[in-house]
């Protein structure tokens, strides 16, 4: 494997052009680009849905939509953001960067890779179609159950629920295929000398993510299939009248749903330390401690699911177990935070856009993590549960911790991917607009939640009016700021200052040894890691 460097270099640039290049491609960079583009589009779609919600919630009373439509918006917003925006973004980075980072010519299973991507657009259509049709008066719209599909409400729902179930099946297949590919690539395609414990952190983050996906997606698929048969074939898995139990669905769903949170975050925890070491100009602190922490988090992720429904009724020992095991997640997470900050400590920091996003990410994700710690307490959870406090909490973890992390990654690697520098001034502006408007949106939600405003209500009592108004203003600012993001990316793809190979002064890793952008087939000579 290591001997022949290829002589007929140029032929490797041969590939179909135009639309066929993208439809048939097995190239990891093309597929990565498609994933990232898809993710960005769906991010805007999911985001505009929530702007509808925030417009409705701008003041008390029903102004723009009926409650049924409101419920559809919240459910589809969540499904799109989780399955069609965040997960494909992480997979996009995996496709682009994993082979570059571990010195592989491509992903291990390139055709599978192509298939994995092309399952996504149909499932996105399945998710949004019922909803779009309803806008034109056809059918009764998308699922109105929230993204969690809880029966019996979802058994009652219309055809939109079936659409969503099939969409989730497809998205799940895509994720499992992607995961298999990533595991095989990481285990088999590393450059000589790159032992597992020398692997880039991003590869570790994704490896654990991939295992989590393979372990939990089938459970979700099973749960929604049972739901489908309950809906159409007279089974009673979740119906007490036939000996079933609606709460069993919640167990199955969250056995997937809780690890899903870490599935969204682990890839980010992988590349954040890489960005930190780049802009701190010193090697990351505690590589081993971080790797072990990631594994610990991955393991804990699958044993704490029931904290999502403490109020649904559980025996005391179960409540105690899930409370303490949930709190235990803060231990490895504290080690990670410690390592990140220790990496910055006595570094020589500069604050280009990726670093700004990373530092902002650490602070805001910290808020998400700490509010998660208090949520673990059963007694207090009775108050927080399904209130806006929870909404604010998981947006600090998933928007700040997920999407802002992804944005850091985009700015970090964009020059490598396109060969051009993005506009630094606009990038920084984008960061400040995003960070500020994000806080304006979600800080008030902590307070309305504590004061007693339930989530998923289309209208609210007058005492919540002021905070909701502030939150809506923040949300619109947050949404509009993302147009700047799109503009920055497009103009960077189109042109700009040429990026050097090692784009950032302190950048470390194999991907920076290639030209920017990397040739169509990345490593024609296999690198050796010492």
């Amino acid at each position, binding site marked *: 494997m290591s001997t022949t460097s290829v002589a007929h270099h140029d032929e490797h640039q041969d590939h179909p052009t135009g639309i066929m290049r993208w439809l048939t491609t097995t190239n990891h960079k093309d597929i990565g680009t498609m994933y990232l583009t898809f993710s960005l589009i769906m991010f805007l779609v999911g985001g505009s849905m929530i702007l509808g919600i925030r417009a409705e919630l701008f003041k008390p009373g029903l102004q723009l939509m009926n409650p049924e439509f409101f419920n559809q918006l919240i459910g589809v917003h969540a499904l799109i953001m989780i399955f069609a925006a965040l997960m494909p973004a992480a997979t996009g980075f995996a496709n682009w960067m994993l082979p570059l980072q571990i010195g592989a010519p491509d992903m291990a299973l390139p055709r599978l890779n192509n298939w994995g991507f092309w399952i996504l657009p149909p499932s996105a259509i399945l998710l949004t179609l019922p909803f779009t049709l309803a806008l034109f008066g056809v059918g009764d719209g998308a699922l109105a159950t929230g993204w969690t599909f809880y029966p019996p409400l979802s058994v009652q729902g219309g055809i939109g629920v079936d659409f969503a179930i099939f969409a989730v099946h497809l998205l799940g297949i895509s994720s499992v295929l992607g995961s298999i590919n990533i595991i095989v690539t990481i285990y088999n395609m590393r450059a000589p000398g790159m032992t597992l414990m020398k692997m880039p952190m991003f590869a570790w983050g994704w490896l654990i993510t991939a295992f989590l996906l393979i372990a939990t997606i089938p459970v979700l698929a099973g749960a929604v299939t049972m739901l489908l048969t309950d809906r159409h074939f007279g089974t009673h898995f979740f119906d007490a009248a036939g000996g079933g139990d609606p709460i069993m669905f919640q167990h199955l769903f969250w056995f997937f749903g809780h690890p899903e949170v870490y599935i969204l975050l682990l890839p980010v925890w992988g590349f954040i330390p890489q960005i930190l070491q780049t802009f701190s100009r010193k090697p990351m602190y*505690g590589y081993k401690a971080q790797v072990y922490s990631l594994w610990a988090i991955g393991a804990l992720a699958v044993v704490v699911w029931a904290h999502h429904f403490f109020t649904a009724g559980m025996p005391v020992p179960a409540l105690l177990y899930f409370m303490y095991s949930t709190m235990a997640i803060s231990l490895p997470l504290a080690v990670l935070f410690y390592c990140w900050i220790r990496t910055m400590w006595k570094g020589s*920091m500069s604050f280009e856009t990726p670093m700004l996003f990373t530092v902002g990410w650490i602070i805001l994700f910290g808020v998400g993590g700490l509010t998660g710690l208090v949520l673990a307490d059963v007694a207090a959870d009775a108050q927080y549960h399904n209130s806006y406090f929870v909404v604010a909490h998981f947006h600090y973890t998933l928007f700040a911790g997920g999407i802002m992390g992804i944005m850091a990654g985009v700015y970090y690697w964009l020059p490598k991917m396109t060969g051009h520098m993005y506009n630094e001034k606009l990038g920084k502006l984008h960061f400040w607009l995003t960070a500020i408007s994000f806080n304006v949106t979600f800080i008030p939600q902590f307070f309305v939640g504590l004061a007693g405003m339930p989530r998923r209500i289309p209208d609210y009592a007058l005492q919540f009016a002021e905070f909701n108004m502030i939150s809506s203003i923040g949300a619109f600012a947050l949404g509009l700021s993302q147009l700047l993001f799109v503009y920055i990316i497009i103009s960077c793809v189109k042109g700009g200052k040429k990026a050097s190979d090692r784009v950032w002064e302190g950048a470390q890793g194999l991907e920076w040894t290639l030209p920017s952008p990397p040739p169509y087939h990345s490593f024609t000579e296999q690198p050796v890691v010492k």
Partner: protein
Amino acid sequence: MQGMKKLGVGAVAWFLSLSAHADYTWNFPEPVTPMALDTLHVHNKFMLITAVIFVVVLAIMIYSIVTHRHSKGYKPVADNPPSTAVEIFWTLIPFAILLLIDFVIMGIPAYHSVVMMEDTRDQSTMVIKITGSQWRWQYEYLDGDAKGIKFVSNLATTNGQMHNEEDKGEHYLLEVDNPLVLPVGEKVRILMTASDVLHNWWVPQFGSSRVAVPGFIRETWVQVEKPGVYRGQCKELCGKGHGYMPVVVNAVSKEEFAQWANKKQDEQKAANDVKEMTKDELVAQGKVVYEKNCAVCHQVTGAGLPPAFPALTGSKIATGAIFGSDGKYQKDSHLDRVLNGKGVMPAWKATLNDTEIAAVITYERNALGNAAAVDAVLQPAQVKAARE
């Protein structure tokens, strides 16, 4: 424009009046049960601990960010590749701190709270059953002074207020026609269930929140220490009326509670007495019952929201015969559907009394654009017979 101006004035007024409703703005509302008090303490303590952690970590970070800057010419001090022992030591410190906080400082009180919350049996003097259904709460007193009292609690806010056609009242969306009445100081055991989908009975000032699961009984308890009116909402997504399912509890002294129970029991007895009524009486009462219970799905005009909620105007069921030639009510007739429900349509036999059912059916057959030729008037006695 006018609206914007009003909003602006509202925002300013809010900033000026922060101190006035401080406890209802920044934290849990004032607790009135032992459980809520405990929850508030746990919450405050946790928040304080996490805030301290956050501030300390943030301070260290900011110090580093300000001091160790490339632009100030700070040279990186690489951690000499730390020995494994050193690395373990340094990562174990945050680990140990968190271990102490999680499992001792926070963990031990949390244990006591859980045990206290789940203890529904000790010293409870009264049992009530709460049933959640789309989209109202049904209350039933199972023992004590109020034994046998059973009523439905519906949102009292008007449609006009929701659609911004009327001015919103002080308790917009948090008001009901029949509040739950509880005696102050008594530990009340609550049995919770649901008739259709999951609901969650929640009063923030009580600190108790339990999912009502159809087909199962869940338990919790409240002991209100202070007389007053307490308001909350359903907080488990339960369909389109989820936001319109308030919980209002009227906590009164034991004497007042006994009086109320007596009065309510008499009223209920009177209502259950079946008497002959005229068509006009039935239609008049039926209109009230309809608008309270049925209009949420079938609309005030009877137009429905097809396909989920069919129209009543001109519907086969609302105009077809109720009784067959043998004098018995037919399957899939208007009466059958109201009594027993089907699919999304709930069964009303447990919720409404004979008179109410007779009235609402008569109303639906003579109003809403319907003028039924057969079985135009249904008498409470016929409903009573149909139940047997």
